[in-house]
């Protein structure tokens, strides 16, 4: 009876890193979108928060697509 602890550990480590990373980026994106709304109301420039939100959300999509790519590439 041999259990491949290394593989199970890898599932845990990869899942934890990927999910927490996605949550951080997604929440960051929502915070940036909030800042953008606030800036709109103050009629200040929205350039910075817009760029930050776009960067965060694009990074989310990239992480997901890269994960799928890894599975397909075998």
């Amino acid at each position, binding site marked *: 009876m041999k259990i491949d602890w290394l593989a199970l550990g890898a599932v845990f480590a990869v*899942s934890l890193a990927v999910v927490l990373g996605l949550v*951080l980026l997604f929440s960051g994106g*929502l*915070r940036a979108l909030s800042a953008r709304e606030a800036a709109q109301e103050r009629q200040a420039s929205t350039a910075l928060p817009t760029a930050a939100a776009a960067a965060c959300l694009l990074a989310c999509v990239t992480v997901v697509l890269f994960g799928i790519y890894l*599975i397909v590439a075998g």
Partner: protein
Amino acid sequence: MDASLLVIIVVVTALVFDFTNGFHDTANSMATSIATGALRPRTAVAFSAVLNLVGALLSVEVAKTISGGLVDDARITPAIVFGGLIGAIMWNLVTWYVGLPSSSSHALFGGLIGATWIAAGADAVHFAKVVDKIVAPAIAAPLVAGIVAMLATYLTYRLTKRARKSVTDKGFKAGQIASAALMSLAHGTNDAQKTMGIITLTLITAGTLAPGAEPPLWVILSAAIAIALGTYLGGWRITKTLGTGLTTIEAPQGFAAQTSAATVIMASSHLGFALSTTHVASGGIMGSGLGRQRDGVRWGVAGRMAAAWGLTLPAAGLVGALAGWIASLGTWGVVVVAVVGMGVSLAIWLLSRREPVRPEHVVDEIAAQAETHKVAL
């Protein structure tokens, strides 16, 4: 009986099993999105069907686990696989009807192992591989999904506390749709594979494929289409039930739970671990309940669920053993198993039509878990 006729019967039965799997599991991936209004039911179901199809085409690692080495393919026949499959379907239908939380994947493994054990001897089952690729992941994966979802939920609530409500409302709905999509994709990468594995194993035992062969393209395509069709048609039942607001999970929680479960499933699929997507999804939802509130899980319910999960493999094994033994006795055995199988299926179908759709038919354990969140509020 003519071997090729038997192979055709097994292939068709396996595809029917795959169809019911999709039918049964749509709820896991789409229930929360429909309940929070993130997606309209019909859209959600169609979307999920397409993603299941794509997911099934992504990877064949899990299929290879099943066709290559769980049981000794030199010592079993298509008749034994048929017996195991019928055992799994019987167990699935009965538990589905009485509302017992169960896993179609574990029913399938149990049926196959039981049938092989009785018909070809205990040493035809490779128990080391069963423990490594099925039992260990079965325990570990829901725990992993739970822990990850707990941390993810905590972090999500913590980080977005100061974000605006107008933004988070819309944002988490979108996030939930994306995570539900991932969940459907993950479902395809793990669950459709099991049917491909079974069909490939049958073709190997019939001598059509060489031992250790990968699933042929037509097997991959037909399994993918069967699960997608099942997902699409299963959705009609959910549409009926979810109108009453079964699930009470908040959008950020659903987002965290589904992202965690989908990631764990896909990482496992990649390594060829054949797990129960239902178990992992439930683990994720429980973890997210804990992450939101320390007493967010009713441990009594969780314990009963775990007990039912533990029961599935041996119970389906017994049914599979009986069916496999009868089927391996000769042509009349296969006919008896097929007739009994169809009779039980027909009876359950008629019974289920006579009464309205009950929640436990549709979202079984997910519904049980969702209840706890209502309490935790």
